[in-house]
């Protein structure tokens, strides 16, 4: 190999390897991050897979807001969890490897578009440091952005090759990656618009070849709208109104300046965003005057890929910018490589400032997410260990803060370890996940409960301390909500009830229970269960209340007599008009209850 060839080899290697290496250095904490938030829902998916049919359901059934992302979420979690369990490193490695491929693709695409190696290098680096990347680089659930980027850029790269060579296999390659992209993220639906825009602006002869791409996108959009549950309110509600321009402006600002700078007083974010934005717009205008429409396409990429999330007025998330920012990165790389004289200096200064603030923002963001994930890991694996040590006892967690609750407990992470009976101590502040006072005291007195404190390097058993301190102040009155199948509430049920099944208990002809009394005149009795139509006679402290069940399942609400107001405990008796038997089951069954509540 000649010296010149060797130098070229190393230059090529550096060109290809430096962006991925910088990515590794910048986001290295993301490699060691553990699971959090939505990750637990995807990790729990494995529990639903028992055979081929349930596997297909797990892979393709619409979930969450009607999303169907078989590759980036379902298959990603199912496969890696099946092989590696809850070891997060393989998940993170997979994300990093895909991102490395994305950086290489972006370099290659930009180089093909601009004819400049430098532009390709700059585009990859500028995109890689963008603050939108922080979440995907530390949180496995956002792998869909990274994988969709791979399919979008891969399909576009094949389109560029097809334009250059006219070869059919490149055209097919574009189709294959485009169709696979639907398995990653719904945003993939915009690819035909990108291809059409590019060919219309820069390769008009190929414009017609992009039109068939709209067919799968249209079909996908129709199916997606059909299966996605309507969201009239909440963060995922679509608002096609005057808020869209404001949302667009917010995203424009966040694409150029990290959110951490927003929080600095004095508005440096506005000044910087205006400067960066003006530089890109001026460059676009200058190139347009020279009949170069590529910058217009880059801005079009940004707007087109962002368009589907603009109606989400109440759910502005920086990570939605991962894919739109590709357009801006290509434009900025093009500008940096093409700028001359004084513009070169201006471009370099702006790029340096952009890199500085983005890298600072990324490091802060990734560090925060990684620290939180490790705290979650300590808690979740601690609970898994506690469940190993105390398999028949419920686990009560003390000292859980808002972060741990919202990023872990809210998502039921303990189900993955077969530990469903995990609660928070009374008074934790998250009432739906707390064990009420009465069952806590009863559980402690009868060795049904162990208490652990969250917060240190390890989960700390504090049952005896908790009993001597906090538990002494707890009320022994019955709770006002009873989950009928919960073993910790069994002491409140009469002996008539049958054994608990999956979230419910059947009752015979008659059954009794104790429950906390009403506190306000508006409190009523809520009965939740199922069973064939029946007439029930509910007696509360001797006062009869009639009830006719016609629906299956049923959710009935009964008014309570005023004289019960303020009673700490109510004796409830439920009597069914008739019972039935099923084959091979000798029990007399009337109605099954899930919960009974006074509120």
């Amino acid at each position, binding site marked *: 190999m000649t010296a010149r060839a060797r130098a070229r080899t190393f230059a090529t290697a550096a060109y290809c390897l430096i962006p991925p290496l910088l990515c590794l250095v910048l986001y290295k904490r993301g490699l060691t991050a553990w699971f959090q938030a939505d990750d637990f829902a995807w990790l729990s998916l494995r529990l639903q897979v028992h055979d081929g049919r349930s596997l297909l359901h797990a892979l393709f059934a619409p979930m969450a807001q009607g999303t169907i992302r078989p590759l980036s979420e379902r298959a990603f979690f199912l496969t890696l969890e099946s092989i590696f369990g809850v070891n997060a490193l393989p998940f993170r490695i997979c994300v990093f490897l895909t991102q490395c491929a994305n950086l290489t693709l972006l370099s290659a695409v930009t180089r093909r578009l601009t004819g400049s190696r430098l532009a390709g290098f700059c585009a990859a680096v500028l995109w890689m440091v963008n603050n939108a990347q922080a979440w995907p680089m530390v949180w496995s659930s956002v792998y869909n952005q990274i994988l969709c980027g791979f399919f979008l850029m891969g399909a576009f790269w094949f389109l560029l090759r097809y334009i250059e060579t006219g070869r059919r296999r490149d055209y097919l390659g574009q189709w294959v990656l485009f169709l696979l992209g639907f398995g990653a993220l719904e945003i993939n639906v915009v690819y035909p618009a990108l291809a059409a825009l590019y060919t219309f602006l820069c390769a008009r002869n190929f414009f017609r070849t992009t039109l068939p791409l709209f067919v799968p996108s249209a079909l996908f959009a129709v199916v997606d709208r059909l299966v996605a549950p309507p969201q009239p309110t909440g963060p995922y509600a679509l608002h096609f109104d005057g808020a869209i321009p404001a949302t667009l402006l917010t995203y424009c600002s966040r694409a150029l300046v990290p959110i951490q700078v927003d929080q600095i007083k004095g508005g440096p974010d506005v000044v910087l965003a205006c400067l960066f934005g003006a530089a890109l717009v001026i460059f676009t205008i200058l190139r347009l005057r020279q009949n170069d429409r590529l910058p217009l396409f880059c801005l079009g990429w940004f707007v087109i890929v962002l368009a589907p999330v603009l109606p989400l007025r109440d759910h502005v998330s920086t990570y939605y910018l991962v894919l739109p920012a590709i357009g801006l990165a290509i434009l900025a790389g093009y500008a940096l490589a093409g700028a001359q004289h004084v513009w070169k200096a201006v471009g370099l200064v702006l790029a340096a400032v952009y890199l500085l603030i983005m890298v600072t923002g990324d490091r802060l963001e990734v560090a925060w997410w990684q620290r939180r994930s490790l705290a979650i890991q300590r808690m979740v694996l601690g609970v898994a260990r506690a469940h190993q040590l105390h398999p028949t006892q419920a686990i009560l967690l003390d000292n859980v803060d808002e972060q741990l609750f919202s990023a872990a407990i809210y998502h039921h992470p303990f189900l993955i370890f077969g530990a469903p009976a995990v609660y928070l101590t009374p008074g934790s502040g998250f009432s739906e996940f707390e064990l009420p006072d009465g069952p806590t005291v009863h559980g402690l*007195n009868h060795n049904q409960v162990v208490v652990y404190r969250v917060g240190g390097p390890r989960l700390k058993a504090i049952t005896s301390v908790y009993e001597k301190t906090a538990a002494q102040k707890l009320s022994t009155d019955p709770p006002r909500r009873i989950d009928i199948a919960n073993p910790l509430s069994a002491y409140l049920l009469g002996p008539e009830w049958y054994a608990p099944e999956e979230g419910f208990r059947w009752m015979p002809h008659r059954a009794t229970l104790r429950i906390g009394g009403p506190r306000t005149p508006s409190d009523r009795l809520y009965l939740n269960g199922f069973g064939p139509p029946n007439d029930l006679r509910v007696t509360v402290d001797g006062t009869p209340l009639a009830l006719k069940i016609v629906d299956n399942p049923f959710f009935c609400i009964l008014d309570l007599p005023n004289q019960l107001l303020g009673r700490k405990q109510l004796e409830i008796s439920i009597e069914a008009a008739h019972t039935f038997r099923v084959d091979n089951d000798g029990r007399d069954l009337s109605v099954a209850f899930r919960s009974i509540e006074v509120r």
Partner: protein
Amino acid sequence: MAIDSFRRDVKHLSRLFAFIRGPYAFLLFLLGALIACHPPDLSDRTEEEPPWPASNLQVAEPDAAPQLISGWYNVEKNSWRWTAGKFAVILRPPIGSAVKGATLTLNFTVPEVIISRLRSVTLSASIEGTGLAPETYPSPGKAIFKRDVPARLLSGETVRVDFALNRVMVPGHGDNRELGVVVDRVGLEPK
């Protein structure tokens, strides 16, 4: 033009990777193997408390043994123990009992053989030296000995409960144990 340039890049890169792929492949394999063979180690994930006394005991449970301090024989059929004429247990007062008091409960069986030989047995108990009213059992079968315990006796971290039977049986035929009753559960219930 661009295609040629791309091919040249691929050629140069493949030379570079050919040089390093041997050790890299090995390292990647090693990394994969390490990850695959390394399930999370849970053993050090919690800091456990030393065992502490319970308020209620299933006497056949292994955890209960340290609290059965005297007069108890081995577990039989994984569910109960014979007692001697005098037997004692350590219990933790339940939550709130130092204010409201508690109920001492002994769930046991008077075997047929005891009644046939001894006609009846009388069980008495004392907590921390304070006697509770005795009860006589003239017939065989399941029985519950229940006595209210005043709050003043339940202020400590644990209490010692002593039980005594007025008569015991020695089976003979090589079994020289003094047998009293068959117990499956003992505990202090909060009021």
